[in-house]
């Protein structure tokens, strides 16, 4: 069970890094007006 959780943790971190990478690439390429609109909702 411990081994399985360790493997799961490793996989989760890998997927998490991918999520961060894609969001980082989106939010760093925003133009001025788009930046202001974030969170305006």
């Amino acid at each position: 069970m411990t081994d399985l959780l360790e493997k799961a943790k490793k996989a989760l971190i890998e997927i998490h890094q991918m999520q961060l990478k894609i969001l980082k690439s989106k939010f760093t390429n925003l133009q001025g007006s788009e930046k202001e609109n974030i969170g305006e909702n």
Partner: protein
Amino acid sequence: MPLVIKDVYPEKLFRKDGKRLDGRDLEELRPIKMEVGVIDNADGSAYLEWGNNKIYAAVYGPREVHPHHLAKPDRGILRVFYRMATFSVFDRKRPAPGRREKEISMVVGDCLEPILFLELYPGTSFEVFIEVIDADGGTRCASTTVAALALADAGIPMKSLVTSVAVGKIDGKNVVDLSGIKIKPVMQIYQLLLHGITTKFHYYNLMGKWI
């Protein structure tokens, strides 16, 4: 006479070299491709390809709650609608939402709710629509991952991102990221879904019997 296609079960679930039938190691994930901002009409959206799974997620909100009696005066509500397209699986899926879809909607909602600051949006709702275009096992994990991405794309304040993966045992071996391969009923497969906030596990969904 109706055409009957019998399920073909593999005789073995592992190759001679110890790898899985699709060529992956026991700890190896299927190829993952993510994209955000794919639906213009949504406040936030994301697309995920996880192996052969293809899933869209769209987020709307905060917006007025319909029907009004569902609104909560002290906090916002999160509603998740998971749906599989009729053509997403080999056998045609009935278009009406089934019990499985309702259950997965609830599971994904339970995973996402703790990471949102719903108390900042009283009387409103956030709606997450998840559409599975192609399914190949592990859609509930992929849905959770893509929904979190769509929420982040909408610019909604979040405590963290949620990621999710299925792990389990096949023939006594621990494996990560189970695919939708047909399993012979006599072969044992145990799936444990882990939905974690970074490295903390906060939701476990146990399917089958753990040994």
